[in-house]
């Protein structure tokens, strides 16, 4: 049996899912879309059922891809029973979607979650009355504390087994008459939706549903127009909203009967926004919180990276010692293998794990939405919305989590721009290059100048990208969730699923890439590699030998410094490079092609096309920025 969890955002649906899901839960995409769901096997009453966590949506209007996929999935017979999770402290609003779900005519039960929140808000709900009014089992629960979960799934199991269908919500007789007429003419149409639900969608002006069925029901267009006109005449309102208003009325009627509003208890967290969203203290808090977050991720990462890297470096020395000729083929391949493995375990994962846990915490506490609120105006100047500040900040640690963080953005265009811009943020590895080359030999002030230059280039790129991908979104509409203490399970599960994606999908490719480069190196193709990069190195006034370190730098950015010494024959860079060349090289390394791990994550998140276009874009930016740096540096040196 398969049980689907559905509910509005912030209703605690995912908390519920995480309470029952194991570490083996799988995330998947609805075919052909970026809309994701999570599924897990759960033991129940001596058997095993599958529980699916569907994306949170406010309604089933089908105005965005997530809603459309949810409707399709719910009506596809893949789900045996639906658990509609409602936030008890916001019942009236949640019921709107419950009523929409009833229209789909599929077996379902109601999980009345967050009973503790309702209590705090002074809301008392008559559960039995609610059950009678909507004709479905209603199970009160507190998912974050694990209360009511067992009774909920037992009820769902029973309803699913009997395939017990709910009663249809009854609207005013004018609407019901219209639905009857329309549904009558749709009874032969093949669709997942039942005729009545189809009729509702048509009256609501759902053009996709209309296109799907208009071939099968040729006369439907004229029929629909007549019915709509008569409804508009009777209600004096656009037909699009007539059913929606009827649902609202019904939800209000039910709420009025079952809810008793008592006195609201004012708690500390009600006051929290006064500080965190304050025009002055709010920004201080934002900077402090982001600083702590970044520091925590960075220091945990560093703490793990350093000893792990040492182990791998020793391993590589040991491998070379095993062969009489350290340049032997197998020695090189093994070292390439070791570098690929260490790239994942010692460089990416130490930052990715603490980062994902931290991001999950900020998200589940409810702070990310506040960040969006505070940063919206500023990010608008870059053609983005408030939330996209998060990937930028994280990019300074490692670009891989930064790309993953673009998931918090809904809009595809915004995700792409944020991802492209975050790859321009110098990560810790590039910091090593800037410090090792520029700060060490030419002074820290110049390293800072490169950082400022980087911010300037990011802002400029953002403006340009906006010219080509104009912002057509009308503006922010975002719910501010109540502050909550997140559950450990939810935060860890979420982090683990994403880490697993990196391990399974990106890491193996990183290892293959690493070994391939080692083989190329063995075959002594360095002169070809140098020729390949020559147009750029020539334009930037760099020696031809930088080709190899730059290409290996794609694998891991710090290699572009380590291998530079090898390529030029000296680690004492001022002997082999002029000051202008050092600055130009560092600037180019900061911007050019994101590292392989980042590229793979971009491909995973946004597709091949996005990956290559970002590679092309960053190469172009790096060349232009390098040229500019060369010119500027020539003036001073």
């Amino acid at each position, binding site marked *: 049996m398969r049980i689907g969890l559905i509910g509005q955002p912030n209703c605690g649906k995912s908390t519920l899912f995480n309470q029952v899901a194991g570490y083996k839960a799988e995330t998947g995409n609805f075919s052909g879309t970026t809309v994701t769901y999570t599924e897990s096997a759960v033991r129940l009453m001596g058997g095993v059922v599958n529980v699916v966590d569907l994306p949170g949506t406010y*309604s089933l209007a089908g105005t965005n891809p997530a809603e459309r996929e949810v409707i399709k999935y719910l009506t596809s017979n893949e789900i045996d029973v639906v658990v509609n999770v409602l936030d008890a402290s916001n019942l009236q*609003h949640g019921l709107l979607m419950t009523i929409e779900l009833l229209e789909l005519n599929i077996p379902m039960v109601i999980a009345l979650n967050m009973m503790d929140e309702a209590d705090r808000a002074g809301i008392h709900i008559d559960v039995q009355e609610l059950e009678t009014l909507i004709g479905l089992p209603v199970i009160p629960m507190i998912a974050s504390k694990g209360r009511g979960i067992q009774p909920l799934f037992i009820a769902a199991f029973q309803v699913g087994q009997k395939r017990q269908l709910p009663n249809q919500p009854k609207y005013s007789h004018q609407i019901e008459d219209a639905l009857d007429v329309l549904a009558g003419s749709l009874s032969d149409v093949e669709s997942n939706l039942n005729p009545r639900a189809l009729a509702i969608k048509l009256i609501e002006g759902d053009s996709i549903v209309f296109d799907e069925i208009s071939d099968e029901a040729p006369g439907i267009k004229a029929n629909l127009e007549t019915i709509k006109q008569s409804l508009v005449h009777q209600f004096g309102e656009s037909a699009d*909203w007539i059913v929606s208003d009827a649902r609202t009325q019904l939800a209000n009627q039910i709420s009025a009967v079952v809810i008793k509003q008592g006195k609201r208890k004012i708690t500390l967290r009600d006051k929290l*926004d006064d500080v965190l969203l304050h025009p002055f203290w709010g920004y201080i808090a934002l900077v402090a919180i982001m600083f702590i977050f970044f520091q925590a991720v960075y220091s945990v990462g560093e703490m793990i990276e350093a000893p792990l890297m040492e182990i791998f470096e020793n391993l590589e020395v040991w491998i070379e010692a095993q062969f009489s000729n350290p340049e032997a083929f197998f020695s090189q391949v093994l070292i390439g293998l070791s570098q690929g493995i260490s790239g994942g375990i010692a460089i990416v994962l130490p930052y990715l794990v603490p980062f994902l846990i931290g991001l999950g915490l900020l998200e589940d506490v409810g702070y990310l939405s506040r960040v969006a*609120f505070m940063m*919206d*105006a500023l990010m608008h100047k870059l053609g983005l919305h408030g939330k996209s500040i998060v990937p930028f900040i994280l990019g300074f640690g490692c670009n891989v989590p930064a790309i993953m963080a673009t998931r918090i953005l809904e809009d595809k265009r915004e995700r792409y721009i944020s991802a492209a811009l975050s790859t321009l943020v110098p990560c810790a590895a590039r910091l090593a290059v800037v410090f090792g080359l520029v700060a060490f030999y030419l002074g820290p002030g110049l390293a800072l100048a490169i950082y400022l230059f980087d911010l300037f280039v990011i802002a400029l790129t953002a403006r340009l990208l906006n010219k080509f991908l104009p912002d057509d979104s009308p503006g922010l509409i975002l719910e501010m969730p109540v502050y909550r203490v997140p559950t450990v399970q939810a935060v860890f599960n979420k982090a683990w699923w994403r880490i697993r994606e990196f391990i399974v999908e990106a890491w193996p490719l990183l290892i293959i890439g690493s070994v391939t480069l080692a083989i190329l190196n063995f075959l002594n193709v360095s002169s070809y590699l140098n020729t390949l990069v020559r147009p750029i190195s020539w334009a930037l006034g760099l020696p031809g030998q930088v080709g190899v370190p730059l290409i290996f730098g794609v694998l891991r950015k710090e290699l572009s410094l380590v291998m530079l010494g090898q390529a030029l024959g000296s680690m004492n860079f001022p002997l082999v490079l002029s000051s202008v060349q050092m600055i130009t090289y560092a600037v180019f390394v900061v911007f050019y092609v994101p590292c392989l791990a980042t590229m793979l994550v971009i491909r995973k998140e946004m597709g091949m096309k996005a990956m290559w276009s970002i590679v092309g874009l960053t190469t172009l930016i790096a060349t232009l920025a390098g040229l500019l740096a060369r010119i500027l540096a020539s003036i001073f040196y």
Partner: protein
Amino acid sequence: MKLLDAPKNIPLNIINYTGGRGVDSKLRQLGLCPGRVVKILRYAPLGGPVMIEVGGRSVAIGRGIAAKIKVEKI
């Protein structure tokens, strides 16, 4: 009057809005439909969004949209 110009912390009645089908349906999903009572809680600095309370929950909406929502004092 426009929601954007309305005073803070005073109950307001939504008269209507026209932001195009996408915006309208998103506003409705968050409980902002004609006839509902809302209250402006705060403004984000630097011309950022407006935070309003509707039916016990807080919703942030961009100023461009807030300018298209007509309200009246109760």
